[in-house]
């Protein structure tokens, strides 16, 4: 049985590990529940299956994703970067956070198989796994400027 609070801690720890190691940006949990990513957004997702199945979804504004990509690549803040590279970078962030989560919950639930990440863009983006799914949402302050929303949606496999 998965502990929701523990999973939220795992999600935060995974995100911090990736942001500190690869992106060099400080993040903190956002305590304002009404703050969300604004404008046109990117949504990175990656699915998993085995004893639990579901997906990890990461959503942020395009300027936020651009800042992340530029930092990961060590580019100048004003450098030009294509949307393709920005999406690729967000996909890699999604992949690495999922990998971090996977290793942290391995002892509790065993190995899970993870897909290749995908990234979509749009203004009204939502993620759902149906009404009977568990959903853990974490909002992060990115450099006190942007908000990133991470959601872990899952169902326990009855088999």
């Amino acid at each position, binding site marked *: 049985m998965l502990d929701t609070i523990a999973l939220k801690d795992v999600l935060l720890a995974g995100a911090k590990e990736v942001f500190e190691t*690869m992106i060099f940006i400080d993040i903190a949990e956002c305590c304002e529940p009404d703050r969300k990513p604004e404008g046109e957004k990117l949504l990175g997702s990656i699915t998993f299956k085995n004893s639990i199945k579901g997906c990890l979804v990461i959503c942020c504004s395009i300027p936020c994703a651009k800042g992340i990509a530029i930092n990961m690549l060590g580019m100048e803040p004003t450098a030009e970067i294509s949307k393709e590279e920005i999406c*690729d970078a967000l996909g890699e962030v999604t992949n690495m956070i999922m*990998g971090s989560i996977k*290793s942290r919950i*391995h002892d509790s639930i065993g*190995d899970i198989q993870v897909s290749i990440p995908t990234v979509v863009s749009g203004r009204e983006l939502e993620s759902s796994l149906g009404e009977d799914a568990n959903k853990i949402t974490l909002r992060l302050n990115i450099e006190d400027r942007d908000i990133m929303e991470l959601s872990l949606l899952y169902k326990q496999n009855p088999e």
Partner: protein
Amino acid sequence: MAKSLMIVDDSATMRKIIMRTIRMSGLDFSSIGEASNGAEAINKLKEAPVDIVLCDINMPEMTGLEMVKKVRAEMPNCANTKIIMVSTESAQELVDGVIKDGANGFITKPFTPEKFQEKLTPFMG
């Protein structure tokens, strides 16, 4: 003499990030090539083997695991090529399995320049 390197990953962004991390680690390579999957890497290695390959696991066309097996089984010109896996996968069974199949090391994503230095320095001499 500086070593030659190939980076194999289906993400062009990740290949650039790895190159940047290598620069930050202070490791010096005579050349750095790229491939976007195992099959492309095999084709390039047939033409020109390299000293070290950094290879992702989950890639289209040919995974990193398949590539390692194929290089070790079918490519004697790469007998001295060191293959280091770079992946978000970290389960000990998988790491042990790929080492048994012929990989020489494993680096987990996310990684630091210090981790690259630690894992690659033994093969730079």
